[in-house]
């Protein structure tokens, strides 16, 4: 059916307008150790509770967002533009 995500630019929109990329992780430095890169590319936590993800408002403002949502209740705690630095915690 539907569920609404509050885009910081567009307001409440149905999830169909978005594309989810997955965990919002910080890209390691290019010379970081191989296991750091393995973590970044392949390994994911699967928490019950708060989880930070990259969502793209594909059919709206086309901005990449960092969405913090509860994997169990679907509650969205926070949603901000990905270009705002310093809020992505790996």
């Amino acid at each position, binding site marked *: 059916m539907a569920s609404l995500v509050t885009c910081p630019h567009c307001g409440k929109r149905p999830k169909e307008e978005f594309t989810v990329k997955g965990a919002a992780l910080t890209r390691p430095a290019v010379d970081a150790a191989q296991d750091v890169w393995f973590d970044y590319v392949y390994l994911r936590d699967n928490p019950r509770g708060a989880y930070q993800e*990259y969502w793209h408002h594909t059919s709206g403002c086309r901005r990449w967002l960092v969405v913090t949502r509860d994997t169990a209740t679907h509650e969205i705690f926070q949603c901000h533009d*990905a*270009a705002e630095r310093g809020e992505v915690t790996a």
Partner: protein
Amino acid sequence: MTPYRLSSGGLIDRSSPLSFSFDGQRLNGFVGDSLASALLANGRLLVGRSFKYHRPRGILTAGAAEPNALMTIGRDGRTEPNTRATMQELYQGLEAKSQNCWPSLDFDIGSVNGLLSPFLSAGFYYKTFMWPAGLWERFYEPVIRRAAGLGKATYQADPDGYEKIWAHCDLLVVGAGATGLAAALAAGRAGAKVILADEHSRAGGGLLSETAAVSGNSASDFLAQTLAELASLPNVTIMPRTTVFGWYDGNVFGAVERVQKHVEIPATHLPVERMWRIAAKQALLATGAEERPLVFGGNDIPGVMLAGAMRSYLNRYGVAPGRRVAIVTNNDSAYALAGDLEKAGIVPVAIIDGRADARIEGYTGKARMIRGGYVSDAHGGKALSSISIWQNGHTEKLDVDALAMSGGFSPIIHLACHRGGKPQWSDEKSAFMAPDGLNGLALAGACAGIDGLAACLEDGAAKGLALAAVLGFDGHAPTLPEISGDIVNAAPAAFKIIPGVRGKAFVDYQNDVHRKDLGLAVREGYGHVELAKRYTTSGMATDQGKLSNVNAIAILAEARGISPAQVGTTTFRPFYTPVSFGALTGVSHGKHFQPVRKSPLHDWAKKNGATFVETGLWYRSAWFQRSGETGWRESVDREVKNARINAGLCDVSMLGKIEITGKDAAEFLNRVYCNAFLKLPVGKARYGLMLREDGMIYDDGTTSRLEENRYFMTTTTAYAAGVMNHLEFCAQALWPDLDVRLASVTDQWAQMAIVGPKARTILERIVDADISNEAFPFLGAAEVSLFGGQVHGRLFRISFSGELAYELAVPASYGEAVADAFMEAGSAHGIQPYGVEALSVLRIEKGHVTHNEINGTVVPSDLGFGKMVSASKADFIGKRMLAREGLHSSERLQLVGVVPIDPATSFRSGSHILAKGAEATLENDQGYVTSSCYSPHVGSAIGLALVRRGPERHGEEVMIWNGLRGEFTPGRLVSPVFFDPTNEKLHI
């Protein structure tokens, strides 16, 4: 007037008769009737057969929870099975048919299942059909499906329309009974934007059947007055015939409006059902409470009905339930029915009240009272004939033709539980209540455990006002009307297992689960509520246990010696009541199934004889058939040859096109491509490879530098949207400090490839500039004017075919005219249009890759692009993971060409490569064919393949094996470039 229809009273219009049919028999009803009330008025007590035992069943309720009176309505494409007769408005010409019966409703062979019932007990399917497994699909399931099952769907197309729509409001009130009306009025008066939805054909809920007086007037007068005021408020929308079926994240409610389910021939400009998605800031459930059946033997015999339902039929529809009516209850509410029956001249033969101390204020009737008594069994076949009354160990038999029962009330809290909250047992209310701590949703009136008209009006008004206030709308508490003659339950009904029961006592009517099944489930170790549900199927029918769940839990609790709270309950899930596939589909079928994306050259291709193929949403021209050509291959071969001999024109508008500007555009490209882009000169195009972070190739294409800080990127058609999203991710999330700006210009340009030895000669008549090889060499890119400056476009000298070739982009609306000009300018030079099939052959001959090869498993060196990867760049997407040792192994599957040894033979893409003489096993698999075609240039089938150490094995004989089809084709590995390996043609 039929024998059961009262001569006056009710909300039916006796001056507007309607005729309808039931199982082919013509019957009459009135405007205002439901199908159920009309059937009852005609004395049709037997309306269906039960699911498992094929027992005769009658109408049990007057609302959405009806488990028995499920019928097939309509005919042909409009056939709709499992319609609840209680919810279906009667209309002129309605055709209804009973279900679950063969050969007829009156004589049903399946009812022998009743005789076999010891074999159909709980868990029967699990126990019996476990073994042998092979018999399940071939024998058991078809037999069971024929015997059981609900109505049958039609195979004909639905001729009617459906649609979806969004609505937004401050307050959604679900249920337009007394509570909901009071809430909507209070919030509406305060100025909130209110939607009041109700699943019934008219607003009013219980008020439609109420005989208590409101401020000295009838309940229906009060209702009319309230509705008139609501209608006068522009901020209030009343939506009758609208079932709110689900509560979703973000406080969105799903609702289905039955726009034209009450007419014989729907108007074609209107949908028959409209699905609403209602985004509500706050919502209030005023959904009322469901009366519970009592679990005694034969409680399913036609003539046994819930007391509230009987009251509805009597008061709202003017239908007498019978001549000798008894009432059995464990609470006060049923006495309102007793009073109403007496007013209609039908004095109940007995009121059997399980409470030894029952004293009902407000009931002064003449009916015989049997206190501390129970109906232990009802008797009769297709109609009720008598009941056995158990009192203090003695049994008395009484002849009756109708029995009203009331086992207490369950608040209708389904919606409140749709987002994961579990119902909470309340000892005080003797019912499951909505979970605490709901956000954006409140409950009022009977669904919150409140009883009585006055209390419901008060609670509705208070909560409507409070929710409006939360949203900043201030209103005044209304003056509440005086209620007289209402019977309010002094205390909730307590559960009690009925003593003396002999016959089948049904808990879940729709799935034919009776009391003993639950006892059996407990004895066999399936007493947990979730297990019992599945073991017995109680609560698993289309009514989701609306009537049965609480009774089932009480019985489980009794059998296990624990409280209902300890038994717990299962969760309610959407949909509250079944929703048609039509409503869920909306307009998305037929030509509206999905959007079509058309190239600006679509009409040009069409008039040149294109056959189109759907690729994603695009319609692409696949080939252009000429007269005399008998098969697609003939057309494609001609197009390929002509492009290599003369010239071809191909529509490549659907390539993704992205314009990239900003001061850091060059740096940005340098980071998203694995090859170098910083030093690409203005006026030049370059082939680029984008990797994923894991080092695999993501997409390829050419990017041209048009100005110092302006680039024009092309992507593959399939990955156009994905690449744009990816670039935006890089620009916004990874490197927001770079000044890079992206615009998708895919649709701005009609782009055509002009290919072949005559390409330049033809192009010279189109573009104004000097495009000689010296002035505009291979990989040139320039803005050009056309036709003496009439049009401005972009010209790229790039080649996917290996021929002298150009791609010309012109503003989309000029596309058709420019393509026409090409055909005219090229006619003397043999120009012909070609489609994607020929395009594919040309590129396979040249050994160019597409996503057939770039399939997510290949790194640049696998495709011979190893040297392109920049060793000097500090960083690019995929750099770190591409450095992994295993990705540089020569044992990897790498690009190679493949041909059949015998040119008369061929092979398919997807076939596997085996070493010559090796056994055809997966262990011996050395790779697979990614692309294949017939090559007019080579004169045989050719292919591209990813093969272990492929580049080192040119010349080696192999076996091309298609295990699915059992095909073996001896072949040879060769260079993947079949055409012009030295690239001379590109530079002529």
